């Protein structure tokens, strides 16, 4: 856990006072809605279909049990008793009154939290994977550099009115679980054989209307230049990024337009002017920030835990859960636990009630070191659980619907809030997720299918990351009716891919059938324990298309003609 110092406290407290004043001026009409809009966005406040939505930052997805209880209080007192975890590891409250926002922000500030820059055309929350600092396959803990970058980019006066939003993620593990390649800047942190830290800098990724995976800008940036290098990128983007069309304003369009080589030259030229300045990071600063992260006092546990293995051997349901919902820990005898927020039709993906939040906070204290993580897939992670405590934890989680054994499986759906909440959406996401979850509610079948990611976005803005789901579902509008376009073959992580459109879109009631057909093609063609995505890579889209549309589908179908 990162612990605030007096600067961090002063900043969030002053920010609350500032926004309280801005809200008052809006209510008295001293500020027009147009003038207020970017101010509220940079404090996380959106106007949705029915009410204001407040998006609270969860830096690198990390919460203390106290902070999670604070979020539960906010859900209970100011909202309808639940919150929604997002793909960028934030939490959204959907039913917020403008007049109460300053009080909510005050509660957050008192718990070392804020909603600063969770929206707006500025540098957003810096993300890492949910298992940062604990993953067995980690090279280095990415959080100190993420925090250094978070601080630097918070209310940085030059970069608060960029052409468009700007997302940065850092990863330092064998497996990229931070979706690095779909970020405006993605950073792979690694050490060379001498132990020196370097960053592989990727730039120009993003989903939305024009999905693009990022390209490598620099292979081996010494870590001390992190701030000046990011500054150079932001300055070039701020000057030359398009501002005439919001759909062409992300940095990916600029990189694409001038080409990565020319872009790299621009960055090199700008960076050379500021590289050896006061922004150059020091070992002392790295240590200072690294030390502000709470380091758990792990016990020395022997690898062999007889009770745990007995429990696995004697309880099939527990074994099934343990086979999916654990992530290997760097410390022997410990594991990270993933609590699924995708139980099926009872709750929309990512939604968690205040009672569940409070229970998770209690488990974090009882079974861990008081820490909770939020994963990019919208699930909750307890990062440090002793294997001998897993059975107790699992039983507790079962009683409140947080033990669905489906991590990485077809029903572990990533979905945006969609047309039920969002004024941008063309179609609903939640009801489609539920229809699919209901169709695939047989656990044995689901586990037999193995790893398949299914992502749903209610519109082209792609908040549900449909492009990088093995199966992607995109809500589209056809003459005022809600339809769904399906893509196949998307993937996140080390081998990121953008999905391909299978064909014309389907009505809502057709979607579960189509998914079932797609899955049946996989079953037909898969070899040994080949996963869905590998079968797809091997056989291509055509067999899926044929079955989804029947034998008479048009083989000359032109993808470009689709929405």
């Amino acid at each position, binding site marked *: 856990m990162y612990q605030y110092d007096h600067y961090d406290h002063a900043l969030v407290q002053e920010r609350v006072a500032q926004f309280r004043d801005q809200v008052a001026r809006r209510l008295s009409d001293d500020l027009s809605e147009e003038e207020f809009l970017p101010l509220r966005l940079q404090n996380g406040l959106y106007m949705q279909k029915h009410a204001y939505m407040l998006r609270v930052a969860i830096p690198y997805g990390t919460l203390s049990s106290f902070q999670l209880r604070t979020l539960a209080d906010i859900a209970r007192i100011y909202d309808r008793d639940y919150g929604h975890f997002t793909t960028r590891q934030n939490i959204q409250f959907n039913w917020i009154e403008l007049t109460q926002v300053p009080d909510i922000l005050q509660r957050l500030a008192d718990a070392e939290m804020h909603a600063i820059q969770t929206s707006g055309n500025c540098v957003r929350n810096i993300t890492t994977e949910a298992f940062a600092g604990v993953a067995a396959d980690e090279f280095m803990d990415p959080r100190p550099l993420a925090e250094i970058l978070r601080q630097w980019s918070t209310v940085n006066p*030059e970069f*608060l009115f960029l052409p468009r939003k700007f997302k940065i993620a850092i990863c330092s593990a064998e497996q990229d679980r931070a979706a690095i390649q779909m970020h405006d800047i993605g950073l792979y942190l690694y050490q060379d054989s001498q132990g020196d830290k370097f960053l592989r800098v990727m730039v120009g990724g993003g989903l939305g209307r024009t999905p693009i995976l990022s390209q490598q800008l620099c292979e081996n940036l010494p870590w001390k230049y992190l701030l000046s290098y990011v500054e150079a990128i932001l300055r070039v983007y701020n*000057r030359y990024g398009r501002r005439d069309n919001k759909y062409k304003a992300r940095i990916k369009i600029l990189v694409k337009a001038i080409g990565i080589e020319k872009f790299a030259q621009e960055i090199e030229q700008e960076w050379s002017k500021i590289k050896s300045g006061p922004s150059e990071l020091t070992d002392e600063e790295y240590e200072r920030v690294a030390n502000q992260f709470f380091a758990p006092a792990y016990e020395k546990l022997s690898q062999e835990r007889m009770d745990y293995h007995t429990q696995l051997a004697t309880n099939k349901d527990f074994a099934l859960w343990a086979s999916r919902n654990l992530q290997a820990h760097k410390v022997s005898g410990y594991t990270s636990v993933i609590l699924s927020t995708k139980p099926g039709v009872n709750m929309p993906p990512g939604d968690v009630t205040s009672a569940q939040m409070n229970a998770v906070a209690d488990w974090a204290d009882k079974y861990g070191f008081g820490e909770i993580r939020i994963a990019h897939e919208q699930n909750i992670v307890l990062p440090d659980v002793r294997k001998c405590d897993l059975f107790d934890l699992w039983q507790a989680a079962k009683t409140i619907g947080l033990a669905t054994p489906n991590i990485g499986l077809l029903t572990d759906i990533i979905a945006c809030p969609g047309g039920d909440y969002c004024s941008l959406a063309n179609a609903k996401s939640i009801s489609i997720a539920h229809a699919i979850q209901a169709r695939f509610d047989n656990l044995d079948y689901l586990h037999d299918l193995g790893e398949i990611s299914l992502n749903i976005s209610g519109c082209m803005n792609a908040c549900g990351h449909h492009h990088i789901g093995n199966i992607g579902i995109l809500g589209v509008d056809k003459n005022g009716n809600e339809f769904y376009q399906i893509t196949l073959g998307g993937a996140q992580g080390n081998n990121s891919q953008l999905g391909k459109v299978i064909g014309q879109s389907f009505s809502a009631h057709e979607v579960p059938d189509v998914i079932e057909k797609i899955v049946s093609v996989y079953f037909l063609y898969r070899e040994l324990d080949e996963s869905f995505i590998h079968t797809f890579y091997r056989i291509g889209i055509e067999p899926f298309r044929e079955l989804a549309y029947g034998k008479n589908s048009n083989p000359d179908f032109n993808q470009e003609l689709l929405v």
Partner: protein
Amino acid sequence: MKNIIKLNNNNPEIIIQDDWQLLQSEDPILNKKVILPLRDWLEKIPESEKATHQYGVWVAPDDEVEELEPWLNCLPIIAIQFPSFRDGRGYTQAYMLRTRLGWEGELRAFGDVLRDQLSHMRQCGFTSFAVREDKSVTDALKGLAGMSVVYGNSAIEPRPLFRRR
């Protein structure tokens, strides 16, 4: 120009109206103390007149401030236009003028200049602010200080917070 906040050794003073007059392209130059669009300054003012220190220049978001580099010694004021307060290019232009080109004279923001952005402008090196004329300049003054903590570096404070702790 009207509705001005001007920093004098970092102390703000309110100026109801000063002598500067902002001209658009093609406006006739009738007085001294006019601020000309960058193009007009570069293309219409002969070099001998440029050196008389009577004209200021203003830049629009699309302009490259580097074009002013040869003339910085001749200019009494540079103004940067904010056609919309949501267009942030003026912040980088100010940073470039101050930090890269070494401009030390008056740097004025004009256009959609509002209370809630004044502290950002000040940190990027602006020293005077022509507040949008329908807004109260006294009220806008409250936005000048901003927050006490700035983590990052800026034109007026090149050291990030970690070098100031």
